[in-house]
């Protein structure tokens, strides 16, 4: 019996030793990251990081319309992701609730901090402290089909610069055939229309919120009515496909790729999709015009932040800092057609000679982003007042009713 003891000991030792590498692996930092379903290069960034670093990131993609709800629930349950790529407009709400890590000290040490896109930095600040840095830059503009412009006898080198010119172009293109339409909007998608319709109002010098975001100006600013009437005309005259009225955003990008749509509101994120997946699509872009001219853009996109309660703040920041490095910005962002978050890198070898990318990037110069903690409730919520107002005005033609309804519900939400 006794002779077995050493053998058993040896066996136990082997077991212990063989389990050691496993234990070491458990020590390896593994972080979770969430991003909304928008085709930025996030997956490419994470893959590149995981291939070259000990720490590993697990990326989860959340449907855009559900992001705030899911993130809120995760935070309430005490299980937020370590890193979150958040639609920039939600950052004030999350920062105000104390759910993001203060990264002011880290940001101060970035040599290029001044060149990071200002709208994103602004939205990532709360009471003078930094909580997020830009990770996806996305301005809105109008994309147009050059072939259809030519067929309709329009000059593709001289795209419309007023609402009337846009209407004229839409009518000419719609006249080309039963299945051809001048325009596309996703009229059952709240966020899409904040992104592409609000700039029509801004470019005309109007707004739906007062400058200090304290009250709604829907009924008091006449431009809001004009812009709704403009879109109502597009709908009434059948210049958009009927299906546009119920599209919840799933065709926001793909509708234009069919080749039978003359113009559509779009964002930077779509350009690489168009050029890579639809090489035959002959398109160009122009800025969203005001009623009588001018230009505006919604400075959209994502910022990246560390959620409060993360146990890996240092490592998470190391990843975030790397995403803004020259290497990541040029070789992952620009190489895949995504605009760098550092403005000085927009001039890069990949963008050289592509006017579309340069025009799209220049939209950011006229880009504007509302700063309010109730942005989601006002604009992006599928059941919020913004979408209901648009649908009642544009699809039902009841502009007065829509303005009143919008003003009342905006005010109610802003008063808390």
């Amino acid at each position, binding site marked *: 019996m006794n002779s077995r003891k050493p053998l058993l000991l040896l066996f136990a030792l082997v077991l212990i030793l063989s389990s050691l590498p496993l234990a070491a692996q458990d020590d390896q930092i593994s972080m979770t990251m969430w991003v909304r379903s928008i085709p930025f290069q996030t997956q490419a960034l994470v893959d590149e990081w995981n291939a070259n670093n000990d720490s590993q990131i697990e990326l989860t993609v959340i449907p855009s319309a559900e992001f705030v709800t899911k993130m*809120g629930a995760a*935070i309430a349950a005490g299980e937020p992701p370590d890193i979150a790529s958040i639609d920039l407009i939600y950052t004030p709400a999350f920062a105000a609730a104390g759910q993001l890590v203060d990264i002011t000290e880290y940001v101060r040490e970035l040599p290029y901090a001044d060149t990071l896109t200002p709208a994103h930095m602004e939205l990532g600040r709360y009471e003078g402290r930094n909580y997020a840095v830009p990770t996806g830059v996305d301005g809105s503009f109008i994309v147009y089909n050059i072939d259809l412009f030519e067929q309709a006898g329009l000059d593709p080198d001289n795209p419309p610069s007023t609402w009337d010119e846009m209407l004229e172009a839409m009518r000419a293109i719609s006249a080309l055939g039963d299945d051809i339409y001048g325009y596309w909007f996703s009229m059952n998608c709240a966020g899409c229309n904040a992104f592409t319709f609000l700039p029509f109002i801004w470019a005309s010098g109007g707004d739906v919120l007062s400058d200090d975001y304290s009250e709604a100006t829907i009924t008091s600013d006449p431009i809001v009515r004009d812009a709704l009437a403009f879109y109502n005309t597009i709908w009434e005259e059948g210049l958009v496909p009927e299906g546009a009225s119920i599209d919840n955003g799933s065709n926001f990008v793909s509708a234009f790729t069919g080749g039978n749509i003359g113009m559509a509101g779009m964002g930077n994120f779509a350009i690489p999709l168009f050029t890579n997946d639809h090489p035959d699509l002959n398109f160009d872009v122009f800025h969203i015009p005001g009623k009588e001219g001018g230009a505006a853009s919604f400075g959209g996109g994502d910022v990246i932040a560390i959620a409060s309660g993360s146990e890996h703040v240092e490592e998470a920041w190391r990843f975030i800092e790397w995403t803004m490095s020259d290497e990541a910005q040029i070789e992952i962002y620009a190489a895949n057609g995504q605009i760098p978050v550092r403005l000085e890198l927009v001039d890069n070898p990949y963008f050289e000679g592509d006017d579309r990318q340069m025009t799209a990037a220049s939209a950011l110069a006229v880009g504007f982003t509302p700063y309010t903690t109730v942005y989601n409730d006002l604009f992006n919520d599928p059941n919020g007042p913004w979408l209901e107002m648009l649908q009642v005005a544009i699809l039902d033609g009841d502009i007065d009713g829509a303005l009143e309804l919008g003003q009342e519900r905006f005010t109610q939400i802003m008063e808390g």
Partner: protein
Amino acid sequence: MNLTWTQRRKLTGLLFVTPTVAFVTVFFIIPLIMTIFMSFHDWPLFGERAFTGLENYQELGKDRQYRKSLDFTFRYTALVTPPIFILGFILASLVRHNIRYIGVFRTIFFLPVVIGLGVSSLLWTWMLDDRIGVFNKILLDLNLVPKAQLFLGRPNTAMNVIILSVVWKTVGFTMILLLAGLQAIPDELYESAEVDGAGYFRKLIYITLPLMRRFIALALILSVIGSVLSFDQFYIMTRGGPRNSTISIVFWIFNNSFTYFKMGYGAAMSIVLLGILVALTGLQLYVLREKE
């Protein structure tokens, strides 16, 4: 331990009810007390909470969508209940007698009940689609409509097609409850009525319906509660649209609690809804009570 027979009996009884009591306490009583407590607070999903007394309840009076949702929910309940009952009763009558292969038909009618409401809602969403949906294909092929219909995109049709899908989904359950009631009626009663010369409708009114009172009450209460608390079908099939016309009351509670992060306000709405449901159920029980 030496227990007398009576003590043992009491102990056994206690042990039998314990799981139910524990279950109800953990999953109903405690959450209910918590909900009442929350409803008196400004209770964000995360962040600081503060006691606000009755403010949430006062807020309800100013909430336009809350009134709209209440109105919608009760309109929906009033519209969806009769078809479920009439069709449920017809189906139950059809499969009442134990003849050969009747089980096949009972199974077919009951099958939609066992799939989830979420799954059935998705199924119907695709079937109703304007581009790939089977309904539009049939209507177009038969030349009944000039072009594909956007059933879920128009306020006047959205409610109707949702009701259609819910009737399909739930009628089997009502059928089973009513079938149990039908089969509990002794055949002798019908036979003697026939001897007296009663036709189908006289038998229905004087024998079938009065003797099924309890089963009808049960089916009605379950069906009405289910309709008042409906959420999935609207969340999935219309997302509350078009023009926010299909936001049920539970949908609005969900939105306030988890999208606008106003848990306290959502709790207050839930308590009011609970009160309404208790009153409604009491009313149904009173109307359908057994008259001694």
